[in-house]
């Protein structure tokens, strides 16, 4: 049984800050099929198209019939823990700092045998539920959970390495003026975040929903205008060492594409707010987060972006906005690579039109801000990297995977 983790104490400045280390990173190209699955929280294995056999580790030919037709498919997660081992003195620096470390060999009901990290409540000879997770090097690993719920399950030491659970962590939500920002604050607080800092530009100017934030225990309103380089830097100077999770809720939505607008002033605003705002935040907070990636219970753990799913394929009705989101998506991959040495994950939430004022002319289905907030929390708890929130986002994902050209035509309506 897991002992619940305790709230971190005030840090002793004389003690060594544990510096981030990465578990082994190299993988074969084929093995990144697991990375793709883990990013979305799916459990996939290779399956032979010819004979139906499942295979693991990643192969180039089926060990049952030598067919090359091995495809990654969603696979049954149930298996049996055959044997376990506890590494006390691993040679790898990452594991040595976290030893003892428990792994096991799991025989999946669908056939293959998988070496997996073990949740502490897994028992030899008992069934387990397998998932694929991204470890601190950003690569996929197999993780075995007990089949049912156990007390304080999410507090497992090895599981917490695979996730960015808000519990006891300090979070910066960058825009408290938006409904999404306010819902995110509430959801993160409910998920056990110790402090939620809420960025508000010109906080003396009143705004709707203000009383949800002001004077609440564990919620601190801070001055932040992400589009202003100095504002971001000033805030980072103040709380930069205390941000364990950053949720970038910057929103700047305006309708229109290219020809129906005159000049570049709106496009410039879109870029200033979304893209340059992202850069300002990254430059202000990124370095400290990367440095604190292994710093105890409340180490820095994740950066969350909320992006329009039209970052993936342009929606001409909001064409310039889509382009600003595409720029942010591209930048998020750069940030992911740069935060990776710190073990800090970058999670992108893709949403369709949100039920807010700037999408008022768009017919349903629209995504409720609360659904986005809940997705942020569940994504952090599950250690995900990509999430599609709402029916529109999910549909665009599928259509894009099936035929990008068809999607482009379909969005031109």
């Amino acid at each position, binding site marked *: 049984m897991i002992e619940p983790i305790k709230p971190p104490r005030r840090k002793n400045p004389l003690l060594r800050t544990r510096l981030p280390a990465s578990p082994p990173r190299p993988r074969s190209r084929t093995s990144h099929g697991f990375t793709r699955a883990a990013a979305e929280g799916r459990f996939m294995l290779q399956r032979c198209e010819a004979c139906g056999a499942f295979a693991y580790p990643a192969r180039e030919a089926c060990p049952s019939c030598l067919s090359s037709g091995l495809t990654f498919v969603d696979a049954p997660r149930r298996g049996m823990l*055959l044997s376990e081992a506890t590494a006390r*003195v691993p040679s790898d620096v990452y594991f040595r700092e976290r030893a003892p470390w428990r792994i096991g060999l799991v025989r999946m009901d669908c056939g293959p045998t998988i070496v997996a990290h073990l949740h502490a409540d897994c028992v030899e000879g008992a069934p387990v539920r397998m998932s694929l997770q991204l470890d601190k090097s950003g690569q996929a690993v197999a993780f075995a959970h007990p089949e049912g719920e156990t007390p304080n399950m999410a507090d497992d030491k090895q599981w917490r390495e695979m996730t960015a659970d808000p519990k006891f962590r300090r979070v910066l939500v960058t825009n408290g003026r938006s409904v999404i920002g306010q819902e995110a604050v509430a959801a993160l607080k409910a998920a056990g975040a110790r402090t939620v800092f809420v960025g508000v530009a010109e906080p003396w100017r009143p705004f709707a929903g203000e009383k949800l934030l002001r004077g609440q225990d564990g919620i601190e309103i801070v001055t932040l205008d992400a589009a202003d380089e100095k504002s971001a830097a000033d805030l980072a100077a103040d709380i930069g060492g205390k941000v364990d999770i950053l949720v970038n809720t910057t929103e700047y939505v305006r309708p229109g594409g290219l020809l129906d607008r005159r000049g570049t002033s709106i496009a410039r605003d879109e870029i200033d707010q979304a893209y340059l705002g992202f850069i300002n935040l990254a430059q202000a907070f990124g370095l400290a987060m990367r440095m604190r990636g292994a710093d105890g219970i409340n180490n820095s753990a994740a950066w969350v972006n909320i992006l329009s799913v039209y970052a993936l394929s342009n929606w001409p009705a909001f064409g310039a906005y889509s382009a600003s989101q595409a720029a942010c998506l591209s930048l998020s991959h750069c940030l992911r690579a740069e935060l990776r040495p710190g073990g800090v994950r970058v999670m992108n939430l893709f949403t369709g039109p949100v039920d807010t004022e700037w999408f008022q002319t768009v017919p349903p289905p629209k995504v409720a801000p609360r659904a986005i907030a809940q997705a942020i929390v569940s994504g952090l708890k599950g250690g995900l990297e990509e999430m599609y929130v709402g029916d529109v986002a999910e549909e665009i994902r599928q259509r894009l995977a099936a035929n990008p050209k068809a999607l482009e035509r379909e969005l031109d309506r």
Partner: protein
Amino acid sequence: MTNSLRTPYDGVVIAAPVTIPYVRYSIESAQWWIGRALSALVAQAGIKASDIDGLCVSSFTMGTDSGIGLTQHFGLCVRWLDTIPLGGASAVAGLRKAARAVQAHDADIVACVAGDTNHVDSFRLTLENFSRFNQDAVYPYGAGGANASFALIARNYMRTFGVTREDVGRIAVAQRANALRNPHALMKAPLTLEQYLAARPISDPIHLFDCVMPCAGAEAFLVMREDTAASLGLPAARLLSTIERHNAFADDPMQVRGGWAMDIGELYAMAGVKPDDLDVVQTYDDYPVITMMQFEDLGFCKKGEGAEFVRQHDLTIDGDFPHNTSGGQLSAGQAGAAGAYLGLVEGLRQVLGTAGPTQVRNASLALASGFGMINYDRGLASGAAIFAGPSR
């Protein structure tokens, strides 16, 4: 007994057992260690380097070199060449190939050599670059090489067959007693069963004295025809039989047996001997539990009876079942791929009567086995050889 259609190794002999004494760490390269072994082979056999016309090499730490680079490096002109990357099965595999080469007159004198250096970081580098499955599906789990993988196998084996740490410990303790008689063994302090049991855990149930100590060193022998050895006046052992098997029993969910179990009938039938006839046995002891598995799979007892076998026998040099007489890898050290050769070379000295302080009295028939390559969840390669000294 299995009927074998295999050609007997008539007229094939093994000679000139060479061990270059091990050191824990070495600033020298693998090539340096292999060079020392070749030099010692030539000196011991009383031949010139130019008499060697076949070369078989195994090493983990040669970098980008393989056998071909070594021919120029050492000034050898050979007409038969092999590089065998089979870890703990390299010696038996190399012997098999070399034996057929000299038997068919493709070569006359084949030098079989294994050597590895051990820098402070070379063990880790070897692990990192071991294999594709290891890279994808083992190394990311902090296994840090063999310890955790073998811990999974050992734990399952011990639970399945009711084996205790004490049972396994008897093997390690007996080998340490043997090592104390081997001046070149790295382990020089006696080991009691109490000390074995009290050792710190490395990767449960693997504890400190279940682990080999990586080191630098080299081992070698010559393979030739009987007539060649006679004309050189070289004492030699006759090769009676060999087996080799890879990826056996792939459907076993966990490894509880090695490939030997598949071929054991053939091993003894080809040699024309029974397990009881053997005077000395050298198993591949990367972990004592793997040795116990070999006692079963090599036919000394039935599957599941390894613990009882160990309790009933004295495994020391003067005991009723002399085993790993040089101390084995557990007590002499594991010099990389040379670890595969350790038992075969020591067994050769035994049947030639040149083992000195570790000599088993009147030893004339020996078995040496190999095991290796934890590619993913099990050791894939296994092999064994039986050979007889001139007195038999």
